[in-house]
């Protein structure tokens, strides 16, 4: 059983590494678009995907480090417990910040004042409630905005973006439902990967068609 869990966690880290690479690719194209057009919201979008990639890579790196130390020390010490809690909190905070940046950058109306965004970025630190539920609420806004955008422009590229964000939302919903169930946890990771693949397909098709 222990061996099976370790294998599944390795698979989860592989999914997150692939997701992180795709997030960096989206950030690269968003930066390129920002340099060409000077549109500030593209810069926010790029930062969002960069923060998301940072969250994924820190989780992958941190989890590997945890397993290496667990192998050396042989048992779950208080130090190791603190480490895994820290890795998880950093991971959640970075993802939440990324989603907040998506809320700011993808809404169709005019962007608001800068100070409002700073307050939004501080929210995860200021509000002491379950991080995952808060993440789902933020992501729900992102998905709604992506849906409204698709409803207005009806382009297949917007549909890929809607699919990507919807997969992220499903991923977080499954994560909440997972509890101790490793299978559901892996399903959540699979949905996240599918979301990143939707973004990758969008990037590829936007350049080819």
């Amino acid at each position: 059983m222990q061996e099976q869990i370790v294998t599944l966690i390795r698979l989860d880290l592989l999914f997150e590494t692939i997701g992180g690479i795709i997030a960096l690719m989206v950030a690269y194209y968003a930066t390129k678009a920002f340099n060409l057009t000077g549109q500030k919201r593209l810069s926010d979008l790029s930062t969002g995907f960069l923060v998301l990639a940072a969250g994924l890579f820190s989780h992958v790196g941190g989890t590997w480090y945890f397993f290496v130390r667990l192998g050396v020390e042989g048992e779950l010490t208080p130090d190791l417990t603190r480490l895994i809690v820290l890795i998880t909190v950093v991971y959640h905070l970075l993802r939440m910040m990324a989603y907040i940046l998506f809320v700011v950058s993808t809404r169709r109306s005019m962007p608001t004042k800068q100070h409002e965004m700073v307050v939004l970025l501080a929210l995860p630190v200021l509000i002491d409630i379950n991080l995952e539920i808060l993440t789902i609420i933020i992501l729900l806004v992102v998905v709604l905005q992506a849906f409204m955008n698709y409803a207005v422009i009806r382009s297949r590229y917007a549909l890929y973006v809607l699919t990507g964000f919807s997969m992220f939302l499903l991923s977080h919903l499954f994560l909440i439902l997972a509890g101790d169930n490793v299978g559901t946890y892996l399903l959540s990771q699979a949905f996240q990967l599918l979301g990143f693949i939707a973004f990758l397909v969008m990037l590829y098709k936007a350049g080819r068609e």
Partner: protein
Amino acid sequence: MKAKRTYRSKMRILADMMRAIQGEGENGAGPTKILYTANLSHDRLTQYLEELAEKELIILTHAESNNRVYALTEKGREFLKEFVRVERISEAFGIEI
């Protein structure tokens, strides 16, 4: 209630002009065609045509005759291709450029 008026960015105007030229194929397009297709005033048209030519994105053919015709350069075709990609990605996220 007044309808909200949206303005095109300069980059989009330049891209629209280049699209108008590309739309005419290998022969290129005259100023009138570009003016109507890109929906510009005459002053703006002259200013932006000069800018595009300076950046070597378009080239003036038949410069000696009265019928001026503009064609896309290789650099211009590459730029337009890149702009279309950027435009699709931006619009997919609901960002107007």
